[in-house]
């Protein structure tokens, strides 16, 4: 049964018990987790972000393979400063979430002391599109066959920061992201051919900004896309404005993307903007010798000028 593939009841019990203790002891004032959505006939099971403030609500919490969104950006919604205690939040973090949180910490948008992290070594989430092909009944489905591609290529299954782990660490497989197969394919095209590819992709974009809003590297207090004066970009969707939007987005996350894959997952128009992020990762790897370009660090290669930086076109 597919339902059984998705769940881990034991882990869920541990999670609920720990959250209850943390809330009751006052160590945290709220917990960011996931709850199962009401099941609808014929519709894929899905777990969505929720905020638990009352210990008697912990039974709502789940952790399964359909917890698609990352929770860390919700931290930015919580009031901060003054005597607000809301930021004393607990949350679950998988490997990619921990990278995302590191990003917010390094950008001084969240402080490490404010958050209590229940780490979950994670072996992958399922891909909704793959799941929809076999759901609800298909007796012989392997987990592998329905896992998300980003998860299949993940090299950070274990959280890199946490306060405690809810289960044993898992072994890290070498990343397949670093193969950059699709990036290489795009690089091999002529500039004109490449332009055509992106023109077709960007012309489908509806500027819903779901990609920006889920992105942990898009954490500016005031996004340039919402600036009217100067208006870097308007709501007009001519192809030049579409390129402008995508350039702005891609360059602003260059060297800061943690490779969680959220932008691609949420895009309603199936635009493969992740390839742009991976192109930057590949360049950073090759030009600056960073083995793991998606691991946040104090000083990013693109965040500091070094006299011996490669300067091919200057």
């Amino acid at each position, binding site marked *: 049964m597919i339902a059984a593939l998705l769940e881990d009841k034991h882990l869920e019990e541990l999670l609920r018990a720990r959250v209850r203790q943390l809330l009751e002891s006052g160590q945290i004032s709220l917990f960011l987790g996931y709850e199962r959505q009401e099941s609808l006939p014929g519709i894929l099971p899905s777990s969505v972000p929720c905020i638990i403030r009352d210990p008697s609500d912990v039974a709502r919490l789940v952790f399964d393979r359909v917890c698609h969104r990352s929770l860390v950006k919700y931290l930015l*919604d919580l009031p901060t400063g003054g005597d607000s205690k809301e930021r004393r939040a607990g949350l679950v973090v998988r490997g990619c979430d921990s990278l995302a949180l590191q990003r917010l910490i390094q950008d001084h948008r969240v402080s490490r002391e404010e958050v209590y992290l229940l780490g979950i070594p994670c072996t992958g989430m399922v891909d909704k599109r793959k799941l929809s092909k076999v759901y609800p009944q298909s007796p012989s489905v392997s987990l592998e066959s329905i896992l998300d591609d980003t998860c299949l290529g993940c090299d950070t299954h274990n959280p890199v920061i946490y306060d405690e782990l809810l289960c044993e660490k898992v072994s890290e497989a070498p990343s397949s992201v670093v193969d950059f197969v699709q990036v290489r394919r795009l690089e091999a095209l002529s500039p004109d051919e490449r332009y055509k590819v992106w023109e077709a992709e960007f012309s489908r974009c*509806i500027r819903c900004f779901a990609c920006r809003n889920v992105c942990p590297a898009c954490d500016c207090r005031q996004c340039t896309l919402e600036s009217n004066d100067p208006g870097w970009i308007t709501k007009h969707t001519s192809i030049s404005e579409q390129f402008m939007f995508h350039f702005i987005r891609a360059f602003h996350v260059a060297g800061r993307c943690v490779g969680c894959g959220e932008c691609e997952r949420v895009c309603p128009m199936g635009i493969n903007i992740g390839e742009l992020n991976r192109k930057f990762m590949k360049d950073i790897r090759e030009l600056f010798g960073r083995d793991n370009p998606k691991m946040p660090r104090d000083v990013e290669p693109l965040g500091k000028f070094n006299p011996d930086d490669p300067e091919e076109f200057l």
Partner: protein
Amino acid sequence: MSATITVDLEELETQLAGDVSRRFDVYVPVDENGAVVFRRLTTPASGWLKRSVSLTRSVLPANKLLTPQTDPVLRFQGGPTDYEVSDAAASTDLVILGVKPCDARALKLLDKVFADESDIDQVYVERRQKTVLIGVACEKPEPTCFCKAMGVSPWSSDDCDLMIYPMQGLEGLALKCSSDKGQAFLAGMHLTIRELPAETSEEIEAHYRAIPQPLSEFVGHPEALSLDSFELPIWGRISERCLSCGLCTYLCPTCYCFAVVDKSLGERGLRARCWDSCMFPDFLKMAGGHNPRPTKKERVRQRFMHKLCYTHERYGQIFCVGCGRCVEKCPVGLHFVDVLSQLRRELAGGGGDGL
């Protein structure tokens, strides 16, 4: 209205790609990297008609072709004090083929907003008059579809000019005319037409009627919300997970909000109506800086009160046609069906009026 007929698929395809395309801008659904989108028919490969009518619902509703994301209003040139202004609003003769019944119904709802006698949007009305809607009955609804619950029949020709029934096992392609415009359009193509006996026509309807739509049964028949629902405590809670993106409103066939935006390039520029979304934090921000909907609570409430209450107060209709797009695509599952369920529970618990 009129009888069901059949036409020859190839003959229709040739006509649409040939003569009709010279007289109209013809838009058809195509599959682009897994996303079904409407594109202008320019140099179609043979067999396109069969492919188009067998596609699932498009990601963007067909009716958005009448209210495009960037819709030119006027051009200006000159400056700094003296501008020449010219009209840029345009409407063309349009054929949209492959319109699903939910999107066709959405246009009927938008008519109440833009083509109401007391409140006419000239460009919209002109486009509406110049557009031929060729619908296609739903052979395989998505699991997220619940149009039946919202009073739409996935086979109904009511809201289109012509309706295609892409059912297997018929000789030729079954069609039905449902307006004078459709009749005239069909006559203009000079196709070989065969009229189907009444029984076959009934069989076709029975075929489509029998296609299940489980989510519709779950949704039942929603009633409108009362104005008092504005104060329900539920809004704060359900909105916590919203991402404040514009996905749900941009994909919704019954959402129509826009902003008027100027873009200037040196001494010339374009003023256009551009889609805007009540889910964006700055949607209602005033020139002086005040924002009457500062948090997600007010914005999510606006979206659902608008659909379930305000439009009902004003036009007598709930503004949802059950297309299921928000159900399928909202990144955090904050969609019409989920919110409706939660509202029902809240109202049942609080002893309020039912939905």
